[in-house]
């Protein structure tokens, strides 16, 4: 435990050190948030373009040719451009939004404060982590501007399509190299970040802050960083091997005797399934990297708004840890019909079914904790409750996809698209929104507009169901994903469903402008916030100023006396007892 107040770095004085190459974890957290915000806008606009094209295939979208003259001659999207936009949508959302916002942005800002540290142990690595990630984003975006555009191979980049080079189709040459370089760079950023998160949690806790006194959000970031360290460490070399297949004449992922355009390809000795194993060994933990911070954030927000702790702090922590461990044993459920040995499919099926147990425990603990609470309804708690509803809906569809026999019917259909959009897309986004409405006052010293926040919730909650529930129905009817148009006879009756989804997506997307407006307006003109507007207990609410000073707690680091969630007690402050309060009161239950 860290109990010496050693200044890691003096207060920054120059503009560059303050706002650009800052060493302050709070500035880095906000930079990550800003990056995620830019990325999510790009990703969402791409999804609108895709949705319009799917519902009305030959519709000319005004101005689309400005984005790509080749990709949209006469403003009508070509088949390959649809796939390119789809690949970019997924890559941007998974890596630069769902990983950066809940984990890197909020984690950077609040983990050091919640453990009672003045910063992370390696501020330079932390600064590098953001800027490396930023470069990764620029590299990915640059693929929009190369001759034949970004790669069309999907965010999973299955070999050998991804590894054979330009002969595979538009974007499969330089587009893939830029994609793999971007993701490889992104991995470096997240590895640096994960190292910092782990050491911050283990070594930088202040006096009295035992591991069990960490808030659930801090636990979630810690668990996520352990997953990040192992998952990104596998994806990065996989990306390097993929680049080598393009530029160095190697054949890690391309077998011999491939014939493309009547030309025998100059490759031999590679394995296409090798890529899938490497990718999904990262890819499945990645799903949990996106969602576990949400579990922590939502628990943290809910507890404050329920005015009581969860039924069990420890059971939630153990469940998150169980999810993390199991996430490595289930990855093969993405490969049931991939040609992997059929016995392996069964071996991957059981851990996938078992992972529903810790997930169910988390949901049941939330539900049981709601019982007997004094629930406050505000924008943050609404999104937290919405998260639970989405997590349930997205979770139960996992029962189906965990079974190889059912996967024969649902694999590569819209059922899968509905499943992951609900459980890792919308749920994780709701976690980000809950965190934003909750922590904004601490980050910017101003309150967000609650009325706009609630309106934003209603559109998002109803809209998300209207978009993603029908995806499951399409999947049951056999609607294959990653099609730019539906030409098969049996898909014709499903086109009206696609039109309904597109209209819902456009409306729900437009409602996000309310959030953007609220965010920017409140940043400058919001009502000034007090130090602890939600009457919360954890350390981020006991900083000497709001926003916190550069070293978080002034000259003396705080001393912690209590478990993180002392609510429903009778203290001098009211129905809560802050972690830094030395007061001993009736009803306080300290486990640690």
């Amino acid at each position, binding site marked *: 435990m860290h109990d010496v107040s050693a200044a890691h770095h003096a207060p920054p004085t120059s503009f560059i050190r303050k706002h650009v190459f800052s060493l302050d974890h709070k500035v880095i957290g906000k930079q990550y948030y800003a990056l995620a915000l830019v990325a999510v806008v790009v990703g969402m606009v791409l999804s609108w373009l895709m949705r319009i094209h799917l519902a009305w295939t030959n519709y000319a979208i005004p101005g689309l040719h400005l984005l790509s003259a080749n990709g949209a001659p006469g403003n009508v999207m070509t088949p390959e451009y649809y796939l390119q936009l789809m690949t970019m949508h997924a890559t941007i959302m998974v890596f630069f939004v769902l990983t950066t916002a809940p984990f890197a942005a909020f984690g950077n800002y609040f983990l050091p404060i919640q453990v009672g540290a003045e910063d992370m142990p390696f501020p330079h690595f932390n600064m590098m982590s953001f800027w490396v990630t930023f470069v990764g984003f620029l590299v990915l975006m640059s693929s929009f501007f190369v001759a034949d555009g970004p790669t069309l191979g999907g965010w999973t980049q299955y070999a050998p399509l991804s590894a054979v080079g330009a002969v595979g189709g538009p974007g499969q040459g330089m587009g893939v190299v830029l994609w793999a370089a971007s993701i490889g760079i992104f991995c470096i950023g997240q590895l640096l970040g994960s190292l910092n998160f782990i050491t911050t949690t283990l070594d930088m806790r202040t006096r009295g802050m035992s591991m069990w006194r960490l808030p659930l959000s801090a636990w979630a970031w810690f668990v996520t960083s352990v997953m990040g360290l192992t998952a990104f460490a596998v994806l990065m070399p996989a990306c390097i091997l993929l680049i080598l297949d393009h530029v160095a004449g190697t054949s890690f992922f391309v077998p011999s005797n491939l014939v493309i355009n009547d030309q025998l390809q100059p490759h031999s000795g590679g394995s296409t399934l090798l890529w899938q194993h490497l990718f999904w060994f990262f890819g499945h933990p990645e799903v949990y990297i996106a969602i576990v911070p949400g579990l922590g954030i939502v628990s943290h927000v809910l507890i404050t708004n329920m005015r009581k702790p969860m*039924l069990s702090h420890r059971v939630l922590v153990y469940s998150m840890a169980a999810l993390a461990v199991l996430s490595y044993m289930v990855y093969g459920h993405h490969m049931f019909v991939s040609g992997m040995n059929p016995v392996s499919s069964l071996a991957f099926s059981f851990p996938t079914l078992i992972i529903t147990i810790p997930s169910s425990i988390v949901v049941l603990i939330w539900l049981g904790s709601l019982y007997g609470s004094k629930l406050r309804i505000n924008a943050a708690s609404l999104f937290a409750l919405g998260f639970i509803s989405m997590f349930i*809906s997205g979770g139960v569809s996992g029962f189906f996809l965990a079974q190889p026999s059912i996967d*024969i019917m649902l694999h590569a259909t819209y059922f899968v698209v509905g499943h992951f959009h609900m459980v890792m897309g919308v749920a994780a986004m709701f976690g980000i929104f809950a965190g934003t409405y909750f922590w904004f006052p601490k980050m910017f010293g101003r309150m967000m507009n609650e009325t706009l926040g609630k309106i934003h919730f209603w559109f998002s909650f109803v809209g998300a169901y209207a978009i993603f529930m029908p995806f499951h129905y399409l999947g049951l009817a056999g609607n*294959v994903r990653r099609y730019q148009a539906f030409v098969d006879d049996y898909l014709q009756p499903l086109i009206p469903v696609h039109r309904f989804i597109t209209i819902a997506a456009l409306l729900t997307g437009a409602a996000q402008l309310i959030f953007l407006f609220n965010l920017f307006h409140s940043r400058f003109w919001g009502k000034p916030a007090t130090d602890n507007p939600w009457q919360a207990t954890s350390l981020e609410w006991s900083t000497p100023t709001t926003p916190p000073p550069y070293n978080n707690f002034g000259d003396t680091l705080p001393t912690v006396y209590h478990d993180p969630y002392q609510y429903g007690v009778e203290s001098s402050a009211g129905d809560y007892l802050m972690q830094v309060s030395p007061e001993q009161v009736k009803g306080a239950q300290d486990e640690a």
Partner: protein
Amino acid sequence: MGRFVAVTIIVIAIISAIPIVRHTWWMAPDISTHGQPIDDQMSETMAEAGIAFLASQIILALFIWKFSNPKPGDRVKNFPGGAKAMVWAAFLLVGTEVLALGVFGVKAWANIYLTPPAANALPVQVQAGQFAFYFRYPGPDGTFGAAHPEMISEANQNYFGIDSDHDADAKDDIVTAEMAIPVNREVHLLMHSKDVGHSFFVPELRVQQDFVPGLDLTLHFTATKVGRYEIVCTQLCGLGHYNMKAYLSVLSQEDFDGWLKKQAALQ
């Protein structure tokens, strides 16, 4: 507002469940001998997942309804069973449910993937390539000619790279762009991709299997109903992926023999 949230959650949960219960959009009717256990598995999973979905959403809504309007003097209460009740419920209810699904599911899967094809199954080769399927029947000699990758040519319509000039086995091979199979006879499908990953999906036949370049995979199935169905690609294979399809005709043995003869004459 809490009560409005509660009502909305319940309304959404019920509306979501209606198309499932009514089978408004559902799997195409099964035409295979192995499909029934898959359909049973789907129905059982749907029932259990459906109950879990509705029950959790309704409990969530009820608790929001009941506890979102606390009166000033109210004190927080704890759930009577505590966390232990929840952990036991998860292990006993969810745990046994998913394990049962898993165990029964093994049978449905093993039926297809862990049984050998019958000795008299009809062998059919399928070659997947950007963006079409081609099929090959061995002809009267019952033997496929060897495939020579360097001879594969769309331009010369030599989709399988067979050397019919020098290879006696290849001389009577029948190559087609449509697949036809006899009803009620097992088919042994020999799958090969010439370029990138593809997949063979026929919803009515309850089969979906990827083509893996560099790896020859097989699949066996029996169709039980005469008709015309679509084979579609489900593995992203490039810009024409959406358009990669072929028709599968399930014919009576007599019609099949006639069809094969006609195709042989066209070679």
